[in-house]
């Protein structure tokens, strides 16, 4: 029952999000036909292009048309190149999604041990060091970290390529190599955020009755934590990871620009500079759709982790 309701909420959110994506572009001033033809075009030319693009129809009709195509995987054609948008988006996702997943993996590898360590050294030197480091990590913009990494590891030391992406079919290892520095840049910032949540979630758990019970049975604090605590601490951490995934995808959009990676972010920015509204609409809708889907997945995973929730 819960699962069905949650999926209903997801579909509702998806529709609302599509209205927002479409609405922002259609309601705000700026006529795509004039954008394409330039301001010196004759009113007749603008009018005929408007008819050709279907812009003379009422906005709700245009929206219904766009949305019913979009859910069937057709995001329309680019105004600039005339090519179908959906295949381009799929192509770009092959860079953006691996980069985001790579960064997320690094983030977990860094922040889980650090957070647990800090919590186990609560109010001791180790905790303080982790807290200072994470405070610094929070302040650094990911794209700046990227620029610094390029300067150091690509330009000075020449360990990694500074920019570009060979493509998965072309060179698998070359592609992985091209994603290492951008993934590190993203992970630096994300780890700082997640470490703090892991730390407080573990601290919270250590105060629970069942940890006290486990301790009274003779388990050491770390035994109690490993056997009973981490599974419980993982629930709030999972929420944050899910919520942060949006920020991570947004960070990917920015970081692609530092490393000149042909991902979704690059596509959106190219779309803006060419005033290619359908392209930007399509790309943005896909990103929001992914974020909503991740949120759905996180909510459903809770119930696997926390049996207490299943009875609801």
């Amino acid at each position, binding site marked *: 029952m819960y699962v069905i309701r949650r999926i209903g*909420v997801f579909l*509702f*959110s998806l529709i*609302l*999000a599509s209205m*927002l*994506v479409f609405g*922002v*572009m259609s309601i*705000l*001033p*700026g006529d795509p036909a004039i954008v394409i033809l330039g301001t010196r075009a004759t009113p007749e030319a603008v009018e005929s292009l408007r008819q050709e693009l279907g812009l003379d129809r009422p906005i709700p009709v245009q929206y219904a048309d766009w949305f019913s195509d979009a859910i069937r995987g057709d995001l329309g054609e680019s105004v600039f190149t005339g090519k179908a948008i959906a295949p381009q988006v799929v192509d770009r996702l092959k860079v953006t999604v691996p980069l985001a997943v790579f960064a997320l993996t690094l983030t977990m590898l860094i922040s889980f041990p650090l957070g647990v360590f800090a919590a186990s050294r609560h*109010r001791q030197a180790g905790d*303080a060091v982790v*807290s200072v480091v994470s*405070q*610094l990590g*929070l*302040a*650094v*913009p*990911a*794209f*700046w970290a990227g*620029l*610094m990494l*390029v*300067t150091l590891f690509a*330009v000075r030391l020449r360990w990694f390529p*500074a920019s570009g992406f060979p493509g998965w079919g072309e060179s698998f290892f070359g592609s992985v190599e091209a994603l290492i520095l951008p993934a590190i840049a993203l992970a630096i910032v994300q780890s700082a*955020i997640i470490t*703090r*949540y892991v*730390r*407080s979630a573990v*601290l919270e758990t250590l*105060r629970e009755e069942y940890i006290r019970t486990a301790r009274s049975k003779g388990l050491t604090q770390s035994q109690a934590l490993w056997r009973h605590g981490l599974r419980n601490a993982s629930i709030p951490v999972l929420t944050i990871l899910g*919520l942060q995934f*949006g*920020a991570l*995808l*947004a960070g990917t*959009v*920015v970081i692609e*620009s*530092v490393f000149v990676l042909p991902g979704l972010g690059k596509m*959106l*920015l190219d*779309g*803006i500079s060419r*005033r290619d*509204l359908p392209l*930007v*609409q399509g790309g*943005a809708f896909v*990103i*929001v759709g992914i*974020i*909503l889907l991740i*949120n759905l997945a996180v909510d459903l995973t809770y119930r696997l982790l926390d049996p207490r929730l299943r009875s609801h």
Partner: protein
Amino acid sequence: MSMQEPLLIHEPPKPEQRGRWRRLNFVVGLSIVLGVVATALVSFLWTPFDPELVAADKRLLGMGERGHPLGTDQFGRDLLSQIMVGSQTALFVGILAVTISILIGIPLGGLAAARRGWVEDVVMRFSDVIYAFPPVLLAILLVAAVSPGTASAMVAIGIAYIPIVARVTRGASLSIFERDFVAAARTYGRGKTFIFIRHVLPNIASVLIVQMTILFSLAILAEAALSFLGIGTQPPTPSWGRSLRDAQTFVQITPRLAIWPGFAIALTVLGFNLLGDGVRDALDPRLESSRS
């Protein structure tokens, strides 16, 4: 927490040690923030050089050369002056973006907490959907439809943070609405709007202030990212993100151009984060200073 001590929510031991740590956060954070504000104010009246003055004979000067403390960029513009003036943009965007988000977010969150039921459902569902739009994505949509610039960036960032403010306001207000003094005000015949403004808001002010300082630093980071992408602040207005965009092409020759503006961003954000942590600890000692 055991049942024998229901009133003592925080752990009392070691107060003086923890107090010192807290004050350090607050003092360091406040000093940095005041420093940035002072820099912005001074830069209105004075900078070492004209930040927008292009000088072909002074291109890419090193640090300290010909009186330029941080050197010059590829157009011969003084880097220190640009960074000083860039603080105006950062603070301006931060203030307006946070203002937009609280002006809409606080009433929405309050409405949800006061009305409950379907009103709450609608408000929270809607804010969940907005929350799925990261600021950068909202900005990309806005900029594609209107035009790139500081105003689009500010509005996009402000809208993106409305759900955060609404959620925090609702969460904090819910328990206050259950309190006896609210029930007392209701028997007086006070309306929910009056009760929210008069009784609930003052009680959740500390939570909101902390949230605002955190949003402020997030807004500075977002503006920097947008200007770096070329869809935020437009030239010739100096912005730290903009400087980093300009520096990107020259980062292989002169990393210095990318180091200093980034350092300015990181320092400012650090200042606001520390200030936020410090204020939270000072206003509400029950809250652990572990969440961001």
